[in-house]
């Protein structure tokens, strides 16, 4: 598998590592990291920086007895911490809702639902009409590819769109395209899926 060509900005990776990204957006970045050794290395460097930043802080003593409490807990089993990756197949997606032939959407609930996270399936050769975005939107392509004014986005590629940017993606003829997308709510077009279809296909 080739490595991706389109990456999150360093500022986005820094937000990811510091923990400032909200869950839906962090999930889309994580999906990119799964296929991008370049950004994984950047994340490791930023985590090393995070470690140095912690070490640089003036220590704040814990109350007396804390350490004995911790020592006593060493032989007890801890809470089962899940340490598995958030991958596209492990995100709790809802049912697939068909929007048009070959075109579907599956929404996922992450966090407290303040943002929208969804899988968008577009059929091979699908043309879209120019459309803008409400707030920030992150996309990682999971399968297939599309082309827009910024270039070709294939599996693993990451795209950040914001308010004022319009684009007109065009899915490759070779096969369908599956994208994992996070966007800020509220998005009026999602209250009625028909409007969403209209927005991207013009039909």
């Amino acid at each position, binding site marked *: 598998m080739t490595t991706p060509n389109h990456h999150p*900005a*360093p*500022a*986005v*990776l*820094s*937000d990811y*590592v*510091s*923990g*400032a*990204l909200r*869950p839906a957006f*962090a*999930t889309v*970045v*994580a999906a990119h*990291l799964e296929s991008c*050794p370049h950004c*994984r*290395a*950047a*994340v*490791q*460097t*930023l*985590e*090393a*920086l*995070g*470690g*140095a*930043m*912690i*070490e640089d*802080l*003036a*220590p*704040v*003593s*814990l*109350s007396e007895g*804390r*350490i004995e*409490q*911790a*020592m006593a*807990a*060493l032989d007890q089993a*801890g809470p089962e*911490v*899940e*340490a*598995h*990756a*958030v991958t596209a197949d492990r995100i709790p997606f809802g049912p697939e809702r068909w929007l048009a032939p070959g075109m579907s959407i599956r929404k996922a609930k*992450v*966090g*407290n639902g303040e943002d929208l996270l969804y899988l968008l399936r577009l059929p091979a050769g699908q043309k879209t009409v120019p459309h803008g975005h409400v707030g920030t939107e992150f996309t990682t392509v999971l399968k297939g590819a599309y082309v827009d004014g910024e270039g070709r986005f294939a599996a693993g590629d990451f795209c950040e769109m914001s308010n004022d940017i319009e684009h007109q993606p065009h899915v490759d003829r070779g096969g369908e395209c599956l994208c994992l997308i996070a966007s800020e709510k509220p998005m009026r077009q999602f209250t009625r899926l028909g409007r969403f279809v209209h927005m991207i296909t013009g039909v």
Partner: protein
Amino acid sequence: MIAQALSYETVQSRRIERQGRRSARVILRVVGETAVIAEAEPVEDACALMLRITQARDKAAFRALFQMLAPKVKAYLIRHGAPPAQAEDLAQETLLTVWRKAEYFDPRKASVAAWVFTIARNLRIDALRRERSAMSYALSVLEPDQAPDNPEIESSTAEREGRVRDAMQSLPREQLEVIRLSFYSDKAHAEIAHELSLPLGTVKSRLRLALARLRGMVGDLA
């Protein structure tokens, strides 16, 4: 160019200074059997303690690591707005996770401090938002591995930690300011731009330059 050469020299001299300190510490430890200067140099480095934990489940090593890092983790959590009692609970939980998940620690990929940072951050996010988040990714990439028993790893990790620190200290003040706000608060870069009354592009470019410099000086860790 001159400025770059100068700062490189400063960094080199810092590195030599630190190496000097480290060997002084070793000498102290040898002499220290007499207990005369027992309190002069407190501790083994975190990596050595961590190896004792992974290899021998050494509780004394855990106690030392707890004393070294839990107060720093507590400070970090307080910076992020956790009330002191919660900061203490989470700091304790962070160190207990180090003990329980010790087999996930891979000194070739991360320093102890970096690993502890990711654990503290994940616990903070889970606790403050009371939800699972994608940040668990960070734990997952560290596959449990065969026990690292190579003494060279220890020195290379310590050296790498030093390089991270040198790189951090060599960052221009305005880049460091943005980095500090990123790691010591809950703010994303857009909010940082707002707080500093800077254009978003300026904050983004500072972070980009800082990361490029760090990667240039530290090298990729993988």
